[in-house]
């Protein structure tokens, strides 16, 4: 029987240290990662992303809970017996070995035949487009090239799962964009399950099949990028992924009464009492003051960003709000400071979050 799940963690809990000094790095994480998926762990620094990867790689054993690989319990299996490989943030290339020997390392440890090793190394070198660098030492390569060697080295033994711990954070912006596309290509070509760690929400949104947003050792939400962006489960997720306007209000039937006293339509089912509304800046539209069903606002400031113009608004009770409007060809949206306008939210764009 073959299931579709590559990695499953069951209430994985990890504490560093003991007694009163114990730090809980992971707090009962349950997650299922499908075969062939590009899965991203996203969260601020210190939320436990690296710890989760280390548990999956076998560098640490969980304090409690289980790790399953293709349905098999591998919780206490040492790293050298797990068909899982890691691309380290610092690359961790062996400085005393050439590029080819770095890539061949795992194959030799596994006792593959000489011809098999040669063939695989050649295939890996061409996969990451480093054919002419085979006999260089890692120190003689640029950061981007070292990155690609690290990838080739980890992919050579064809692991069931590839773990990548913030692999792009050391690269400059241009190279990072290039490597993002490269990684995506490698994942599609090899069909290997990628578990990718980043604290960069944009990187997560552009690359992933699914994202798990983490905070303080817990997974808050798992979903496709669109789902997470459009339907964040709570204020933290909404705030961490993209820019968001937060408005507070109370549920009144199928509407929400804002603190400014005005009513807004929203999907209120399952919510009651005090709630927070989250609205993305690009979902805020501006119309002439007094238009029916619009909120009254005053322009505080407009900031030109090229394709976009950000319009800072203030509601009747001084709640601040940002609208992102496409800049017209003239570059001037024709709104000036102090002007009274109406604002409308696109239908379905208002997310209701419990307090």
């Amino acid at each position: 029987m073959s299931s579709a799940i590559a990695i499953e963690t069951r209430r994985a809990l990890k504490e560093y240290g003991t007694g009163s000094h114990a730090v809980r790095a992971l707090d009962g994480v349950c997650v299922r990662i499908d075969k062939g998926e590009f899965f991203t762990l996203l969260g601020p620094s210190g939320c436990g992303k690296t710890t989760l990867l280390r548990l999956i790689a076998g560098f640490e054993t969980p304090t409690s809970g289980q790790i399953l690989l293709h349905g098999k319990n591998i919780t206490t299996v040492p790293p050298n017996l797990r068909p899982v490989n890691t691309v380290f943030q610092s690359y961790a290339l062996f400085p005393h070995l050439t590029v080819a020997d770095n890539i061949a390392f795992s194959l030799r440890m596994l006792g593959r035949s000489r011809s098999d090793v040669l063939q695989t190394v050649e295939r890996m070198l061409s996969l990451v487009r480093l054919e002419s660098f085979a006999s260089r030492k890692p120190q003689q390569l640029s950061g981007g090239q070292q990155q690609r060697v690290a990838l080739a080295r980890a992919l050579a033994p064809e692991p069931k799962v590839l773990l990548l711990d913030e692999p792009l954070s050391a690269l400059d912006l241009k190279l990072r964009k290039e490597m993002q596309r490269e990684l995506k290509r490698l994942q599609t070509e090899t069909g290997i399950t990628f578990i990718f760690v980043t604290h960069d929400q944009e990187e997560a949104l552009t690359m992933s099949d699914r994202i798990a947003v983490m905070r303080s050792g817990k997974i808050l939400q798992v979903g496709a990028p669109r789902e997470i962006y459009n339907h964040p489960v709570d204020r933290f997720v909404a705030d961490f992924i993209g820019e968001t306007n937060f408005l507070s209000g109370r549920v009144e039937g199928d509407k929400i009464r804002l603190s400014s006293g005005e009513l807004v339509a929203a999907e209120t089912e399952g919510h009651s009492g005090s709630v927070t509304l989250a609205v993305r800046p690009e979902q805020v539209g501006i119309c002439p003051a007094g238009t029916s069903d619009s909120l009254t606002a005053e322009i505080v400031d407009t900031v030109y960003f090229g394709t976009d113009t950000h319009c800072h608004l203030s509601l009747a009770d001084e709640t601040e709000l940002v609208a992102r409007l496409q800049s017209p060809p003239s570059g001037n949206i024709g709104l000036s400071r102090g002007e009274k306008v109406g604002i409308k939210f696109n239908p379905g764009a208002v997310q209701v979050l419990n307090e």
Partner: protein
Amino acid sequence: MTIVSDRAFSVSRLPGFATIAVTVLVMLYLPIVLLVLFAFNAGPSPAIWEGFSLHWFPRAWANEQVKEATIRSLVIATSAAIISTSVAVLAALGTTRRRKSPGQTFVYLMINQPLMVPEIVTAVALLILFGFIKVATGYQGLGYLILAHSAFCIPFAYLPIRARLEGMDITLEIAAADLYATPWQAFRHVTLPMLMPAVAAGFMLAFITSLDDVIISLFVKSAGQDTLPTYMLGQIRRNMTVEVNAISTLLIGLTVILLTAFFLLTRERNRPQK
């Protein structure tokens, strides 16, 4: 240690600095210069110069006792260096690659004990211990000297190896395990190759330390087991000959070569490794 602070305060600008520096250098090196110079003396005295000659070198080597003592010294130094370096590698792995524990300072002190306990104390202690063993087993061979030298050479081999291990990125060993290396393979294919310069450096320091030892050798050796230093000491007690100068000159040459190699090997360590 910046250039600015050098400018603000420099020891070399203090009055009398040059005088003191020169005096110290002369005191350190004049005896050695004289010793080496008189190794090339044509005459029989290590004090009266009678012209240049190389004949003391072949003459020293023709002396059976010198030859035997030299070979004995080299056998002991090589064996002791191999044993102490092997132990030092294990000790360094044990003290850097395991979780920090309260007992670690104690272990560290134990390993470096020969550097702190006066040599004469160790010598007497070994004499007594080996005395027991000799009576019990009847064994009289070189083993005692090799064992004693191995023991006091350990810290000299240990220190450079430990320094290198501490400076090494542990992620590399984790990466090896991730790439299917067993703990032994990770040591053999990653840790050891990267440790090699320090192992060689430790080996040479141990070798020189053993080659140079007098006190412990004097106490531990059986009759007829002179090492080069104890032989030379015996010679000087009788009458000074230029032969001793010649042997010393060769020893100095060897030491300079080994220390230069040590310097080059440990300098490698400070190079950035990415």
